[in-house]
């Protein structure tokens, strides 16, 4: 019972037997179907529509175009709202847009009696555009005189920031004699979350309010944004989030819920459903930002990192979404992970282009930042002939680290222990030596990468969570959280936490998995690896209140001082002797129905978190590269995590497995591709190469379990960190195996083959 046990997921049976209700299981059979009309140009303006043929299709109820929507621009990212205007998210899109900024932009919508009629009408709508040349890369967008994508930002720059750690400048620092300097460019690609359940919602009106049922990570934020987009009071909107099939950050954005709500109002409040196809999900929702890093670094021959300077360019795509927060977060790992003896200069840009909008995706800029820092670590180590692991030990984050700007502190430090475990597992020292001078068509190598990740968003943004507990007549409780279960196991660990604090066993704790903004207490939702930390604090606080109320009632019933009693295993016991005094069921029944002193025992609390801490970890990998085929086989891989005390070891392991699988796809195959006019080429799961079960090696996990003093139960971030380190670790292993340094992702066979040809590892083919 309680924290630290591998309790079976509280939703396991429902999910395995198919009884768990998702949006698709809940939508009314007579719901109207909405289909979005997407632009077939990437940049330009919609001049007019010809709807004549489309309106003739039997079953079409209503067609709404970009000329019909309210003139409100709204923001979409799942950030807590800021009451200070300067910190509010960029509001740069309407429900449907006349100014087309991406191939597939939402320009109209059809509402019909069924999907076939809706699709037929969509195909029959004719659009006249004013076409502009598409801007598909950051360089093009930043050029003098480039087409302006949003008039509020005439330079196409969404955000720009810089920071420095240390004194002086990079140029001054490298005047020191004997330094080895390196100039590198590292680049990451756009990828997608590929959650199993596509974005899906339905909306209907009830008593003048709009009810939206949606697959989202952030129901309370969705409610606010619908209010902003439609220009209606937020209280007029009710959002319900049932079971959801994954999100990974894509559903930490308000996607099509506002449009769905609006369409519902356009058909008299009838229920309208809006379910994206997989192709739309890949082409029209969000991606992980492609970021280019231009870096200079200087290292002393003894392995001391002396100075670095870098510029990061993040391709935002068409709309701001999470915007500059991503590349800015990614830049932080440069200062947090490594200590430059003299100076680190950092400058980051986020730039609008006509590419798909990038947003939040698991680890929020850190996978990109870590790709740069960890490739650089190996490249610097190679440049001075040092073992890359020793280089990291010499220069990496130390115990007690405090970020000089945010003051976030590493309150529990297990990084070096993680490196030690990984080193032993992969047999680092032996294999670095053994694979030194290989020949032949198959070669092996070992590589590593390290990372750190903060827990939640304090002090950048608000961190708040709330919880409600309600005692039932039989002594069981209902547990209501604003925090969302999105597949990660949140409901299970919240149940364990509640049990730990209240003394009520988990089988008597009934957690409500559905978040309903009319009922559920406020929480900003699932993101930033925050919930077990921030929302966990709310469970702890609420649990204590509930237990005190229970003991106060026990005092009334037993005429024994509350502070001499405790609740254990659903019993009121004597604190000292553990003698059972009364069952919680008996107490609850009395409390409900007492003619003398009736009380409905409930507890509710908000916990505002004003703390943060770093989780860290390392990935070690051994690969075999088939040079003529350009393929990489993972022989062995391990993720070692310093994530504080594990709340549920099995769930923790599963979380790491999922992250590693995602990281492997990011490394070896996944990439969204576009043609010259910005049209997506591979927005389907055949051509977008996510790894299958057959591509996935055995995934090893290990944990360094240190009690973090700031975590509600000694815990810290574990949601996102598992997906961070695979790409650079594998890249570094390929470097070890072949001597070839790949500086762009993904490391797919074609890229490897062409690069091996370049390096003379494969003989080139003559033209024929």
């Amino acid at each position: 019972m309680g924290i630290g046990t591998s309790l079976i997921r509280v939703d396991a049976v429902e999910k395995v037997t198919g009884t768990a209700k998702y949006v698709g299981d809940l939508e009314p059979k007579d719901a109207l179907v909405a289909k979005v009309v997407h632009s077939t140009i990437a940049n330009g303006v919609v001049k007019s529509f010809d709807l004549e043929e489309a309106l003739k299709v039997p079953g079409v109820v209503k067609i709404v175009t970009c000329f019909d929507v309210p003139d409100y621009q709204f923001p979409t990212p799942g950030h807590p709202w800021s009451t200070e205007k300067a910190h509010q998210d960029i509001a740069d899109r309407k429900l449907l847009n006349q100014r087309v900024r991406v191939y597939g932009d939402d320009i109209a919508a059809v509402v019909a009696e069924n999907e076939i009629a809706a699709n037929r009408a969509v195909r029959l709508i004719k659009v006249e555009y004013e076409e502009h040349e598409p801007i598909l890369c950051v360089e093009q967008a930043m050029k003098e005189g480039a087409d302006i994508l949003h008039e509020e930002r005439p330079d196409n720059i969404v955000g720009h920031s810089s920071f420095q750690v240390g004194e002086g400048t990079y140029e001054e620092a490298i005047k020191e004699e004997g330094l080895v300097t390196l100039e590198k460019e590292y680049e990451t690609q756009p990828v997608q979350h590929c959650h199993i359940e596509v974005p899906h919602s339905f909306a209907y009106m009830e008593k003048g309010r709009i009810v939206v049922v949606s697959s989202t990570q952030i129901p309370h934020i969705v409610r606010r944004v619908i209010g902003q987009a439609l220009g209606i009071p937020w209280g007029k909107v009710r959002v319900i989030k049932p079971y959801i099939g994954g999100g990974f950050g894509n559903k930490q954005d308000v996607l099509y819920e506002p449009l769905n709500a609006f369409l519902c109002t356009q058909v008299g409040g009838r229920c309208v459903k809006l379910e994206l196809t997989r192709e739309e999900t890949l082409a029209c929702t969000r991606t992980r930002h492609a970021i280019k890093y231009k870096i200079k670094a200087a290292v002393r021959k003894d392995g001391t990192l002396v100075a670095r300077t870098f510029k990061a360019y993040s391709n935002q795509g068409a709309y701001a979404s999470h915007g500059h927060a991503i590349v800015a977060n990614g830049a932080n790992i440069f200062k947090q992970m490594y200590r430059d003896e003299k100076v680190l200069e950092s400058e980051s840009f986020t730039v609008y282009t006509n590419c798909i909008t990038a947003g939040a995706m698991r680890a929020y800029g850190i996978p990109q930042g870590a790709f740069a820092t960890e490739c650089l670590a190996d490249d610097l180590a190679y440049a001075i002939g040092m073992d890359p692991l020793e280089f990291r030990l010499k220069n990496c984050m130390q115990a007690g680290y405090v970020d000089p700007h945010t003051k976030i502190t590493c309150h529990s430090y297990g990084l070096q222990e993680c490196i030690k475990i990984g080193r032993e597992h992969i047999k680092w020292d032996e294999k670095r030596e053994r694979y030194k001078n290989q020949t032949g068509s198959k070669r092996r190598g070992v590589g590593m990468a390290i990372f750190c990740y903060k827990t939640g968003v304090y002090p950048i943004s608000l961190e708040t969570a709330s919880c409600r507990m309600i005692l039932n007549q039989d002594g069981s409780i209902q547990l209501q959280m604003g925090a969302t279960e999105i597949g990660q196991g949140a409901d299970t660990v919240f149940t364990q936490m509640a049990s730990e604090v209240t003394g009520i066993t988990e089988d008597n704790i009934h957690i409500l998995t559905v978040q309903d903004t009319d009922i559920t207490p406020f929480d900003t939702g699932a993101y930033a690896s925050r919930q077990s930390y921030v929302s966990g604090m709310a469970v702890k606080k609420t649990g204590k209140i509930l237990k005190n109320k229970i003991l106060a009632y026990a005092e009334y019933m037993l005429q024994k001082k509350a502070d001499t009693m405790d609740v254990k295993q659903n019993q009121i016991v004597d604190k000292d002797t553990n003698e059972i005094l009364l069952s919680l069921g008996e107490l609850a029944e009395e409390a409900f129905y007492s003619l003398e002193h009736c009380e409905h025992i409930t507890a509710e609390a908000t916990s505002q978190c004003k703390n943060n801490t770093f989780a860290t970890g390392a990935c070690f990998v051994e690969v075999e590269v088939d040079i003529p085929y350009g393929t990489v086989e993972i022989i062995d891989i391990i993720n070692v995590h310093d994530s504080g005390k594990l709340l549920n070891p099995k769930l923790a392991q599963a979380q790491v497995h999922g992250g590693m699988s995602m990281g492997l796809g990011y490394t070896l195959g996944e990439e969204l591709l576009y043609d010259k006019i910005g049209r997506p080429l591979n927005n389907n799961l055949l051509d977008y190469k996510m790894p299958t079960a057959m591509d996935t090696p055995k995934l090893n996990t290990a944990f360094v379990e240190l009690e973090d003093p700031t975590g509600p139960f000694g815990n810290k971030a574990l949601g996102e960190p598992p997906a961070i380190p695979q790409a650079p670790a594998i890249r570094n292993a390929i470097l070890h195996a072949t001597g070839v340094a790949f500086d762009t992702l993904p490391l797919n066979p074609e890229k490897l083959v062409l690069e091996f040809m370049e390096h003379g590892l494969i003989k080139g083919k003559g033209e024929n």
Partner: protein
Amino acid sequence: MYDIESVIVASTVDEAIEELVKNPKAEVISGGTDVLIKIREGKMAGCHLVNISNIPELKGIEMDSDGTIIIKAATVFSHITNDDIIKQYIPNLGDAVDQVGGPQIRNMGTIGGNVCNGVTSADSASTLCVLDAKMELKGPEGTRIIPITEWYQGAGKTVRKQNEILTAIRIEKENYEGYHGRYIKYGKRKAMEIATLGCSVMTKLTPDKKAIEKLKIGYGVAGPVPMRCVEAEQMARGKTVSRELLDCICENVLKEVHPRSSWRASKEFRLQLVEEMLRRAFEETVIAGGGNIDV
């Protein structure tokens, strides 16, 4: 929800042909693993379908008295792989169709659909090419037999007319007996994949196992349609098996293939695969035949 105007379920081949004649817009559906995708994409929206997946005479694998293997067109991939005749005589075809998509696709998709779809990446195609398969078509005017070399008319196009049904694929004894075959599919992942390149090799060694009696090399995705490398095959005939011979074969093959650059793979990358896959497949067939490439 699929936008299908009408579906007729035929119970015999003749009935299916009759329906296709009646409605010249009607298209054949069997396993549906290609057709349903096109309908979902909107390409065939409002289509009329003639379903041939419940016709008993289109299912199963038989051997004629002269040793010809007859694969009925609506036989699904997983049945082919697990069929005793296939396992015994042409296991390379069984292996090839076992690499299509995933298990669900292989339980629905048929070999007839795989070739009638006309695409160069079809996993059965290059192996049917090296088996010199004969395609049996039945239409309103009766039955005709087309050698697979004449089957493909261009990307996505075959000689089959709208009102014809591919009834069987015939493989004659002389085209498999004494050979050892190997199909290699190169994909970017190990399942649920369309071939970046497919290479199918069949080798028949001389009785002393030292030289090549006959060699057959087939490719998918090395050109707009599945193809054979006839000149390389001719060149190798009667030659002693050696690394040098393999080099010569590769050199010839590279002159015969004409892969194109697409966003899926560049020509340069495909040419590298053309050679490397051939090397690996050829060596395996020689070893399977009891020969040794390094002697």
